[in-house]
């Protein structure tokens, strides 16, 4: 216990010269920390102000302006076209396929996540690759492959079975979207299923419940908020999907394709805008619900305890059933990606099955497109990464006015259908002062917008992992804002920088719906070229470009993996 010898004498304030703050007389000396601070205050304001203006300007120009402009594009007549049966049919189709694909993709995604969360299940490495493939390659590659396999002249339907039917239309689209989007659900669900942990499962079994009772009473209820989140996320991807329906929808028109037809085929931008807005409303609602769901913490993430017990074994029946279903899905996936590779070496799919290198040569000659894709995506990834890190810093580490708006605008593009972004950009940036149409810049910038939400979320997660006391400590030790940012924040964000770069690159290179409106004869990109070639039945060339594009994606990933090793945490599967 301390003695009572505290220094009573020193408690009395000593007389001090009044400071300039109070008197303004020139001769008094004030401590140098105070002399410095005035200039410092201004310098810090300028630093933060510059960053905020950059982020705010970027978001307003690239996200807010085109979206708002879109809402004012249709005239009264265009709005009246909402009543047209064609529109109603497309809306109905979108809802039907949206609900069907969302449910099936989430179920398959759940099965994958459940299997991946159990360390006792063999063959998880294979499942992991299956779940990764659609995340790394463009989603419409699945559609292209189904066209090759189950189309009117498809390998399986026509050649092997000799049928004159095809899987195109509703059924095929359902299959394709399920396979293309289930990894989104897996990615969302896996951390939760892992976190539920074996302890709770054992506890349930220990109380005398069967596997099924434990699953129904423990696992499902605990995972429910995440399942809901996965459904909403997959739903947004499915109803805004453009590549797959345009390739294999056949007569089954959905809103995104109908908008494309109106804009590109009929040059009726008013009508196209109406269709986009019609699609934007439900995605925005899903997006807002998802934000609500995410803001409520689930019990699982709070506990965060991973059981140290080995997992409770699955009943043999369940294990066999699970592996059978997942094995079938995996076989289908192998067939799909295999057919793309095979197609790129086949002279004329469906007619002449001889091997050739022609398509690769064409793809490389048309290499402009692939090279542009690689180049523009890399540029877009760099811009996105820097901008999102700055945005996350401004929103989460400064007190700038309008942070909430910036936060909303940064994630809003994930709620805007790609088709809508494409058409709105075409309208907004077509004339002075923002005439960008036909330039490489507009393609890079639209890729930035597409990659923005994911990049921003990564940046926010990373910046939140840096304890606020780190930058407080730096400031407290006398460092200026600029010095804190350059010497503390930048180095600490370094790891996230590369991860975010790879994410941005993959998002940019795989984007189709937004860029398809903005490419011009001089400047093409891989993804839209694939769709255009496929629409004209040039399977060989289409698969050649698709394979080429995937090679570029995988190469980018490999470079990052080599550079970072295990520090690259891209998709935590």
């Amino acid at each position, binding site marked *: *216990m*301390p*003695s*009572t*010898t*505290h*220094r*009573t*004498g*020193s*408690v*009395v*304030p*000593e*007389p*001090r010269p009044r*400071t300039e*703050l*109070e008197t303004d007389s020139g001769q008094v000396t*004030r*401590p140098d*920390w*105070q002399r*410095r*601070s005035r200039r*410092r*205050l201004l310098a*810090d304001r300028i630093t933060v102000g510059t960053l905020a203006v950059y982020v705010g300007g970027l978001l307003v120009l690239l996200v807010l302006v085109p979206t708002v402009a879109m809402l004012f594009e249709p005239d009264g007549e265009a709005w009246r076209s909402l009543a047209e049966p064609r529109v109603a049919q497309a809306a109905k189709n979108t809802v039907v396929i949206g609900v069907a694909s969302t449910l099936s993709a989430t179920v398959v995604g759940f099965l994958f996540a459940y299997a991946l969360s159990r360390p006792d299940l063999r063959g998880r490495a294979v499942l992991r690759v299956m779940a990764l493939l659609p995340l790394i390659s463009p989603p419409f590659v699945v559609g292209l492959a189904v066209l090759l396999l189950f189309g009117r002249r498809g390998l399986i339907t026509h050649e092997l079975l000799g049928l004159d039917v095809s899987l195109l239309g509703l059924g095929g689209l359902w299959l394709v979207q399920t396979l293309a989007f289930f990894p989104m659900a897996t990615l969302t669900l896996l951390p939760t299923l892992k976190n539920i942990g074996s302890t709770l499962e054992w506890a349930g079994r220990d109380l005398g419940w069967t596997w099924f009772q434990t699953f129904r009473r423990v696992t499902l209820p605990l995972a429910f908020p995440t399942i809901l989140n996965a459904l909403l996320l997959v739903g947004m991807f499915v109803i805004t999907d453009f590549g797959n329906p345009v390739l294999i929808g056949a007569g089954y028109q959905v809103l995104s394709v109908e908008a494309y037809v109106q804009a590109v085929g009929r040059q009726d931008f008013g009508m196209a805008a109406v269709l986009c807005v019609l699609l934007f409303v439900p995605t925005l609602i899903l997006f807002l619900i998802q934000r609500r769901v995410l803001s409520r913490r689930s019990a699982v993430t709070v506990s965060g305890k991973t059981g140290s017990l080995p997992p409770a074994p699955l009943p043999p029946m369940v294990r066999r059933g699970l592996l059978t279903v997942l094995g079938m899905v995996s076989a289908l996936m192998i067939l799909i990606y295999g057919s793309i590779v095979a197609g790129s070496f086949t002279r004329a799919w469906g007619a002449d099955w001889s091997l050739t290198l022609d398509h690769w040569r064409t793809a490389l000659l048309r290499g402009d497109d692939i090279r542009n894709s690689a180049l523009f995506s890399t540029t877009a990834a760099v811009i996105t990464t820097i901008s999102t890190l700055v945005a996350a810093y401004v929103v989460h580490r400064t007190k700038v006015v309008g942070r909430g708006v910036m936060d909303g605008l940064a994630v809003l593009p994930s709620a805007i259908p790609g088709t809508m972004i494409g058409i709105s950009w075409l309208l907004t940036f077509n004339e002075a002062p923002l005439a960008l149409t036909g330039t490489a810049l507009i393609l890079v910038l639209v890729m930035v917008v597409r990659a923005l939400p994911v990049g921003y979320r990564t940046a926010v997660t990373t910046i939140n992992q840096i*304890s606020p*006391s*780190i930058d*407080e*400590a*730096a*400031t*407290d*030790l*006398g*460092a*200026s804002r600029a*010095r804190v940012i350059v*010497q*503390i924040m930048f*180095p*600490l964000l*370094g790891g996230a920088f590369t991860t975010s770069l790879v994410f941005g690159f993959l998002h940019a290179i795989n984007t189709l719906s937004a860029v398809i409106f903005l490419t011009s004869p001089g400047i093409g990109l891989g993804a839209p070229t694939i769709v255009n070639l496929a629409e004209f039945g040039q399977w060989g060339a289409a698969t050649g470009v698709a394979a080429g594009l995937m090679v570029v994606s995988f190469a980018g990933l490999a470079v990052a993996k080599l550079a970072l090793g295990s520090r690259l945490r891209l998709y935590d599967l």
Partner: protein
Amino acid sequence: MIELKSLCKSFDGVPAVRDLDLVVGRGEFLCLLGSSGCGKSTTLRMIAGFVQPDSGTVLIDGIDVSGFGPDARPTSMVFQDYAIFPHLTVAENIEFGLKAQKLARDERARRTEEALELVGLTGLGGRRPNELSGGQQQRVAVARSLAIRPSVLLMDEPLSNLDAKTRIQLRTQLREIQRDTGTTIVYVTHDQEEALALGDRIAVMRDGSLEQLGSGHEIYLAPSNGYVADFVGITNWLVGEFAGESPESWEVIVAGAALPATPASASPPVSRGSLVDVSVRPEDVSLTEEDATDGRALRGVVRDVQFLGPVVRTYVDVEGSVVIVHSAQSGWSPGTTVRLAIGNGTARAFPRTEGAWRPPGAAARPESAVAAAAS
């Protein structure tokens, strides 16, 4: 030295600090003690400049620092989570603040060396933070703060992330460093033992206001109100009836026994027969064999005896409330009726005033039972 003048701060309309006045002398080690949410950290952050007060002023060395950020104040903060820059070496961490002061290279090196020596980490300047233990990291943080020679060192629960042994070690080291450097320290903690061990003076806070300011002795032995008595150390609460007063002491009837108790300073006048709360420290109670002839003795029944190593803790039931007794030995077995003797002048009486803090559970105690026991 620091002067806080009627400092107020609210967050979203919820007051965190209310009208706080406090003077910390040069070279003093002051502990801000309180449970979470009492406003102690907010007070510290207002001194550091991370939080600007809604009203009131902060003077450091006689200068009003209102409106200045933490970088412009001659204070330095040590954080609960160390806040060591993980990408810099120990020496680079310490030099970080020296660079901001634009010191020459050799002066920086000299001061870094000096600071490392001060915290007993000589030779570890080249290490990375992740190669250090938590205790070492926190010592780096202290060195980093001391190197810039702040007028005031601010510490926000710096030891709470460490294990118990390291905590006590660092505590002692911290006092040595403070004695050697003569730095003024304001230290925030929720751990009353830590506050007693470290502080020249302790400021006990509750709900954004100062409850008591004084040395550890004063706080522990002469708490100015029931909250301080309850928060600092362990205490037993008994309900009694005011029966009369002498100049220094009150007579309180507890469970039929007359007990002399010292009233808290500035206690309002109390009328005969009104209820007061009496606080008795466990070490101030001794147990003796029951003496049936003495009708005025305080009696209880032993419920449980726990051997804790340095002390034996005996739980005694006195008219339905449990009294904890600390002693060197205890031969009592549960069920025995014993007599409780309370050290002269050690019991503290707190009259019940409107809106004042009341000991937990006290309100639930049936007043009638107390009255019946008294009669």
